[in-house]
């Protein structure tokens, strides 16, 4: 309406508008160092020591397993995003991160289709079904891992880790947590557990490698340190209580902390920003819940390790945690609103 009536009075086309000047709402600057891709690439960099340790312990099995998962995750990501009618967003590297973490969470011996199926479930059901990056409630890698853990119990059970005749000595021992659960065999010494000279899933064995990578992530602020710290602290407290109340429990606090996937998950799985709470208080609650659940599952369930279920359970309560930890604004709550 305005346009029509003003037509006659409007100035000639070449007059006032400056060529090429844009109009947009502020702010007009943005931090150049940050992108989602950088966050993801940081996770990959942090995983280098972990992968190096896996390579040292399990040789080509590690390359194969991680390779299968990464390729499958990328393929599923591409297919599902085309299917949803959006451009495949492979360049944000999030599918690679899921693939690497998934691969590192599997036993060396799992047949190829286990990794492939886990990837399809991880990306397809864990992520794409919810609407893609940022929309999922559950950690995709843990959705995939949980699915194959139940579906292919034999390929992922305790016995899958132990095999003789591969030429790798470490593979003849039971994993520490299985040894503890079944009260059979002897646990490696604490130092061996810390450095990673033990059997287990590909990425979980070396606490040292996980700490190095995790420290990098936290220092780069690509992960919040509150989650791993609160998770490990709460695991230690619950394990300590268990030791006090049930002297028969096979693992000491330090053994709990150095065996299984506790430290790996504390730094690389629990810190997944999408599936963890937004505020500091929420992150502490989340980490504490995770640590406690991991130890409780280890102690009271038939599974030797509890990370997968602990993560999925805590992921489910993240929206609730977010809701009860809405921070009070600076200066208190408005009186009138």
């Amino acid at each position: 309406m305005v346009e029509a009536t003003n037509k006659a009075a409007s100035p000639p086309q070449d007059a006032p508008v400056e060529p090429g000047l844009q109009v947009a709402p502020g702010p007009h600057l943005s931090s150049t160092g940050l992108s989602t891709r950088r966050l993801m690439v940081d996770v990959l960099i942090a995983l280098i020591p972990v992968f190096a340790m896996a390579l040292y312990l399990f040789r080509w099995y590690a390359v194969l397993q991680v390779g299968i998962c990464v390729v499958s995750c990328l393929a599923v990501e591409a297919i599902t995003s085309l299917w949803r009618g959006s451009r495949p967003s492979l360049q944000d590297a999030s599918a690679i991160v899921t693939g690497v973490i998934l691969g590192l969470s599997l036993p060396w011996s799992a047949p190829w289709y286990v990794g492939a199926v886990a990837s399809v479930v991880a990306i397809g059901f864990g992520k794409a079904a919810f609407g893609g990056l940022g929309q999922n409630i559950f950690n995709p890698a843990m959705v995939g891992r949980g699915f194959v853990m139940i579906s292919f119990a034999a390929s992922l059970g305790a016995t899958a880790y132990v095999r003789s005749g591969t030429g790798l000595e470490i593979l003849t021992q039971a994993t520490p947590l299985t040894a503890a659960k079944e009260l059979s065999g002897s646990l490696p010494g604490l130092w061996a557990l810390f450095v990673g000279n033990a059997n287990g899933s590909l990425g979980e064995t070396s606490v040292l490698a996980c700490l190095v990578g995790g420290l990098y992530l936290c220092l780069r602020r690509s992960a919040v340190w509150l989650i791993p710290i609160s998770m490990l602290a709460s695991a230690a407290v619950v394990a300590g209580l268990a030791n006090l109340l049930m002297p028969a429990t096979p693992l000491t606090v330090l053994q709990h902390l150095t065996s299984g996937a506790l430290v790996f998950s504390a730094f690389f799985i629990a810190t997944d920003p999408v599936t963890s709470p937004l505020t500091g208080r929420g992150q502490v609650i989340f980490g504490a819940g995770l640590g406690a659940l991991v130890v409780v599952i280890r102690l009271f369930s038939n599974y030797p390790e509890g990370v997968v279920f602990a993560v999925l359970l805590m992921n489910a309560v993240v929206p609730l945690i977010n809701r009860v930890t809405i921070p009070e604004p600076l200066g208190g709550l408005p009186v009138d609103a």
Partner: protein
Amino acid sequence: MSVAQPKPVKPGRRSFSGGIHPAAAKQLARDQPIEVVPTPKQVRIPLLQHVGALCEAVVKSRDEVVAGDLIGKSEAPVSAFVHASISGKVAKESAATLPNGRRVPTVPIKAGDEQLEGQALFDDTYGGEWPTLRLDLPRPDLILQAVRDAGLVGMGGAAFPTHIKLAANPDRPIDTLVVNGCECEPYLTADYRLMLEAPRPVITGALLAASAVGARRIIIGIEDDKRQAAEALSKAAESTGIEVRLVRTKYPQGSERQLVPVLVGSNVPAAGLPLDVGVVVVNVATAAAIARAVLRGKPMTHRVVTVTGRGVVQPKNLLAPIGISYGELIELAGGITSQAARVLAGGPMMGFTLGDLDTPVTKGTSGITVLTRDDLQAFEETACVRCGLCVDACPLNLVPTRIALAARKGAWTLAERYHINTCMECGCCAYQCPAQIPLVQLIRMGKAHLAAARV
């Protein structure tokens, strides 16, 4: 804004939490001494340059006016008079769209032959003697009257009428006057140059303002990247009892809600004002204007405007008459370069883009920033991965991503549960977001929607 019951608030910290460190780019203009703009052929003086009611013109077309004459007034409780910034003949009223999008009537004045120019104008504004020690303090009501008559508004950007801020209220005794010399907005250097080149009127103005509000303490807060300005002010403030304090250089340090806790130690209540914790905050340029209004009876006709950014040829700090066009000031800075992409009224964090360079400069115009295509590298927006960087950056302890995405979806209950109306739109969240989500823009839109829905 309601000034209801002050709630008990927690004590503040030495530095506020949250905030960001954008490339300040102050070096572009910080070493450029204030230059006096030659009288333009014409100025267009908006009748609304402040928070509050529109003024009505008290001059008619073809009236002769002298610089400083009253040309617009309003008897509304919240408003500020406007004055002729040059001498000449009033032309027919016309309208202009201000950078904030408001279309307001303006009084154009065509310049006559007699003008105050150059050094004489600078001396008249900021030069000469400014008593600081043997200052004969006028009665508070006289200070207030002079400030009101001079049409003073906050020169830091918000343009709130100063006489309202300085009006003493027996129910809310004021303990401390904070003079804000932070200038935390990137690129801008107008306050810095003023503190450096004219520290004495700032000090005198601070003493007058403190006397008007009954404050027994005066603290000047300056970001620590402006050490020289702080030194100049300390020197000028010698033996006056005024404290000059350096605060950390961090955006938005100059925001009242951040500065007051740092300097005074108490948080401003979310729904309140610094007044609720016994503090009044005035900007340094406003302080100088108070001195000028009270001691010299001169209204607000000129201000220092930084013209800067990599999109102008020669960044400058200009003492410009109110009502001159943005385009003329940019020309005085050598014009825009071929790389120029966006012209901003103010700085890059909270400034508005200009669509029309004929827009007149107002009392709240602290700078003109011309950004280039390189400054504005546009990234594609990607999905929120809930990384929480916006939560860490928010100086008000909000959760910007939840508010913004709720506002985008129209989930107003959710937005309010996360305190959308507490947001002061500083833009830290949008600056920081790795997914390039226009967080503060969405929140701003949401606030506007809610405000409209409430009416």
